[in-house]
């Protein structure tokens, strides 16, 4: 049913729920799972991006460093050590735009993401109280494929995972 699922890593711990749901579904359906992170540009026309080290140029070195970290982080959350159908991609720009561009170009069947956005750092502390950020809103409204916004461990996408969780989960 699904051949390619993209999980949009927003770098909030809460999106681990979305990753777990995407992983379950990818394993169940034999789909490729792509972890995509978009380094947010300073402004919508800017070639400079915001990273944990501050504002910088979107260079291959910056991409590679982040890819390595994301790969290690998400592989540690997978049972299979070297899944062949798993890859990490990093882009730069306006997140919702790059997610849509990637999904269209790669003919993605399903986008899975958390609800937040880096655009509004003042609301960072509110991650305990989910709200839908502008990236999640725009991706949901504009994507050519289904989009799953996953906000809690109860929200599973794979039928098998639902069975394991038991009724009422």
């Amino acid at each position, binding site marked *: 049913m699904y051949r390619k699922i993209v999980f949009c890593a927003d770098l909030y711990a809460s999106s681990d729920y979305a990753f777990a749901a995407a992983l379950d579904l990818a394993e169940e359906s034999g789909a490729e799972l792509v972890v995509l992170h978009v380094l947010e540009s300073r402004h919508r026309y800017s070639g400079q991006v915001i990273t944990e080290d501050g504002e910088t140029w979107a260079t291959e070195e910056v991409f590679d460093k982040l890819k390595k970290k994301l790969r290690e982080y998400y592989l540690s959350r997978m049972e299979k050590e070297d899944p062949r159908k798993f890859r990490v991609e990093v882009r730069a720009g*306006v997140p919702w735009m790059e997610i849509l561009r990637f999904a269209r170009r790669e003919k993605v069947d399903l986008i899975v993401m958390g609800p937040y956005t880096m655009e509004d750092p003042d609301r960072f502390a509110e991650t305990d109280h989910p709200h839908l950020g502008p990236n999640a809103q725009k991706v949901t409204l504009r994507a050519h494929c289904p989009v799953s916004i996953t906000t809690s461990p109860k929200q599973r996408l794979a039928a098998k995972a639902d069975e394991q969780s038991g009724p009422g989960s």
Partner: protein
Amino acid sequence: MAATEQAGTVAGTGEKGPVDVKRVREILDANNGARVRTWLNLCARCGLCAESCFFYLAHNRDPRLSPAYKFKKTLGEMYRRKGRVDRAFLERCHDILWGECTTCKRCSMYCPFGIDIATLIAAARGVCYSQGIVPEGLARTLVNYRETGNQMGMSVEDFIETCEWMAEETGDEIRGVTIPVDKAGAAYMYTMNPREPMFYPQDLGMLAQILTVAGEDWTVPSTGWDCTNLPMFAGDRPLAGKVVKAMYDKALELGVGKILLTECGHAYRSAAFEGPYLAGIPDGKPPVEIVHSVRLFYEYLRDGRIRIDPAKKLKEPATYQDPCNVSRNGGLWEEGRKIMAYLTEDFRDMTPNREHNHCCGGGGGYIPMGPEFKGRRMASGRVKADQIRETGARIVVTPCHNCFDQINDLNKEYELGVRVLSIKEIICEAMIVPEEFLPEQEEEGAE
């Protein structure tokens, strides 16, 4: 960061060896015409240029930031030393030429002798560039221009795919939108800032909506579509000429009527005014007429090809940021205000305004120079921040991506509480879409 630490970032070879005095002399000799000689000798140190410069005003009227001082200490000194300069001198020049001037040309308006100080600064930038001294951010783009013909290094395939994507996207909002690529004989060939297709392709989508509703005959070229010209600001004249020539050549190849530029300031300066000289065109005129978006949008509104829904005009107080290269150096300051009259209910002009408006502080290559220069960009931008605050506007409209970026940064730095908008996004929100362009309604229950 100290100025000399910033300097010495390199383009091209990355060499850090001794200065090639012969090459410096060649460049100085090439520029040593009657005009430059006269300007260098004519300055009477009257100081009238100082008050015109936002760097000077933003830094407690430091005399070292007066335009006359800046060109005397750089190009003037290079000539005085007959080109025998060392690297430490050029690195000090780098700091002045890129860190303390955006070549906005406001000083030239106030010089009683009409000395074009920006041209002198540009010549001195060329000397520094020849010795590998140029801000890193600009150097990065030069590699992309050389390899791909555009500053973001976007491939032809990616560009065309982006056009197709945006045609699909906007087709949901305006029926019949297409983005024709390489259409021979079109009335307009649209050229853009590569940051649009690369980072915010909605911009292209919005333009397509406006041109579709206006019933325009237009195309985008598969090559030569980058109308920006950062080599012009980096001091790489041969590359600057190649960049603008690629655009002219493509327009001639397609046989289009005119070249339409996006909402970009320096693209207008390059394509319409400096480009022909950079490209070696003897009469100094572009081979195809250049039209800036500000002019075309104004004509559409004036002629009723685009009509604005009065209920959708901007209600909040709005002001207009004159990009230096659209207004002062491009002559379109009245068109910008007439557009604002169509789009806003409460327009508040800045003081000073029109051709006298201050540079935002992001021009002349300053924005692409990157994070290393941000502190100084914010400090000198205080003049613009004060101008905006005094209008009481909640919205700043500007037809230039560098102004857009800079004012967004100033908005955060000085807590201005404004939104920055381009003209095309306001038109898209407010225009009356004739029935034939309304999207087809999907039938309920359709499979």
